[in-house]
């Protein structure tokens, strides 16, 4: 069966998208306590001092979901998942750099 719908508008999880604690937990399908632990672990950096004022960025949805999957699929504990997230970010930065450098290199040929 095929169903078609015209032009669904999604929400872009970018820097502009802001979520409160309960909303982040709901969207990611985790408990508020799990979000608390991730903040305590330094995996998420909400703006605002107290949990009631916390505001998370859209990209943090991706981080929470990724952390949950890594913990579940690879049986990692929270610090382990935090480390994996940091390494994944670092690899992404390096890949970007490699692409940049490769573009500078150009082709070469043997000198006579």
């Amino acid at each position, binding site marked *: *069966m095929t169903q078609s719908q015209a032009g669904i508008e*999604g929400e*872009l999880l970018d820097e502009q998208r802001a979520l409160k604690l309960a909303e982040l937990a709901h969207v990611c399908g985790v408990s508020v306590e799990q979000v608390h632990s991730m903040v305590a672990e330094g995996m998420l950096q909400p703006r605002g001092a107290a949990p009631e004022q916390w505001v998370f960025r859209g*990209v943090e*949805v991706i981080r929470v979901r*990724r952390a949950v999957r890594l913990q*579940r699929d690879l049986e990692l504990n929270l610090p382990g998942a935090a480390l994996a997230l940091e390494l994944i970010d670092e690899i992404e930065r390096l*890949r970007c750099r490699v692409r*940049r450098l490769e573009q500078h290199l150009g082709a070469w040929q043997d000198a006579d």
Partner: protein
Amino acid sequence: MEYKDYYKILGVARDATQDDIKRAYRKLARKYHPDVSKEPDAEQRFKEVNEANEVLKDPEKRAQYDALGTGWHAGDEFRPPPGYGAGGDGRRWQRAERMSPEEAAQFSDFFSSIFGDLGGMRGGGMGGDGGFGGRAGGFASRGSDQTARVRISLEDAYHGATRQLSLEVPEIDAKGRVSSRTRTLNVRIPAGVTEGQQIRLAGQAGGGVGGGEAGDLYLEVEFAPHPLFRAEGRDLHLRLPIAPWEAALGATVSVPTLGGKVSLKVPAGAQSNQRLRLKGRGLPGKTPGDTYVQLEIVNPPATDASAKAAFEALAERFKSFNPRAKLGV
């Protein structure tokens, strides 16, 4: 359907110990985990590895699989012998821990033909994303989320676009049986998306049991390589070839941007690799990105006599110029 060689998938011998299997599985799970691996077929491999592990880690399932015999090869056309599969001997395998019905539905037909439809526990009792319980009836649970990649051109990222996607969504009938069906969605990609960003489409991933919400669909944006521009966040980078006299004397040249051609003033005395910024000419956004133009001096070919003479005149005029002065030669 195709026979699956679970031993081959995990890279272990048929007489491997349970410890060997566990070790091989854990190693491959780390290697092909879709959040870790950048291999294009990581997701598919991860599923295969999980399916193989699902069978081989459980001595009872492993024995049943082994009983098919050793004459099979991966990819052989397979028909289950009588007595196998759903309802064959009336036995139902308990669904494995941490496996949602949607995940079970992603296992191959080969798997179902031997072990039955794992999602087929009656009366609900299945949770999305790992939570599950044996409660019968009246139990609502949320469907699993799904992530898909969507590859777009830089032009689409600049202007916004609509993309048609086909995805397999699990569907659970009144008896709790899981099947998948193809669903076509037209999704609006907003202008100004950047590589790696995700778009959340709430409730578009299907699933959901007993009136539970459907899962969310996440689309991860990926840019197709562009012949001219390289994107870094909202900024774009472009190499701009210029002639030696344009570099030396300065010039106003035409530069392509995603928004159309613009004029760029090359300052007199410009050098290769010098970068000029076209502010706000990158991908749109609350703070639009910039386009960085990197100059590259390109010589015209000097093949005929008059072209050679022109360069010779230049050499004569700049006799004392040593481009390698800094190299000490």
